[in-house]
């Protein structure tokens, strides 16, 4: 989720809360979920980076082994 998407979602939640679509505790939990989703995104990006680095390392090792 980009910062822009996050801001839009947060704004939507606040609008829904202001129009009485859910309770205060539900609002707090749903906002907290946005933070949790962001932490999932960060871990996912780190994992993807690791996968890329791994592929590079494995590629170099394969070339070195073949020489």
């Amino acid at each position, binding site marked *: 989720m980009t910062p822009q998407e996050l801001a839009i979602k947060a704004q939507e939640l606040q609008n829904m809360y202001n129009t009485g*679509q859910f309770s205060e505790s539900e609002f707090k939990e749903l906002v907290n979920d946005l933070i949790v*989703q962001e*932490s999932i995104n960060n871990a996912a990006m780190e*994992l993807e980076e690791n*996968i890329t680095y791994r592929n590079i390392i494995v590629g170099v090792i394969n070339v*070195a082994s073949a020489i």
Partner: protein
Amino acid sequence: MNKLIVVLFVLANLTGCAALFMAPYDSNENLLINKVAVKSEEMKEFCSDYTQTRHNVTSLFTQAKQLKNFSHSLPNNELTTKMVDSLHQMVEDMHTRYKNEKDTASKTYCELKFQSISDSAKYIQKTIAKRPRP
């Protein structure tokens, strides 16, 4: 040439290279995440029925616990367990709210919560599918 390979491995170990020693793609783990993603999407349709949703949330919580337990059992799987723990936390929060016999959760909360869980599960699934095959 063997020396070069040894040097590369030593370097990787010295830098604590998590990238090289990561858990490979696991189809059981993928299946468990897929179940959470699909079920939460289906369960969203029953949000107007509190009793049914209460039952559904209990079932989803069991699935999330199975996923968490399985992911933690895989070696070198720290980043995936970090994501799975967060997903489990979201389901656990919902489960805690629906433990109550009384109809206290709103339909909008229910729909948004299931949607967040489903979106997060799909995102995790998409990411772990890129892990190297064993």
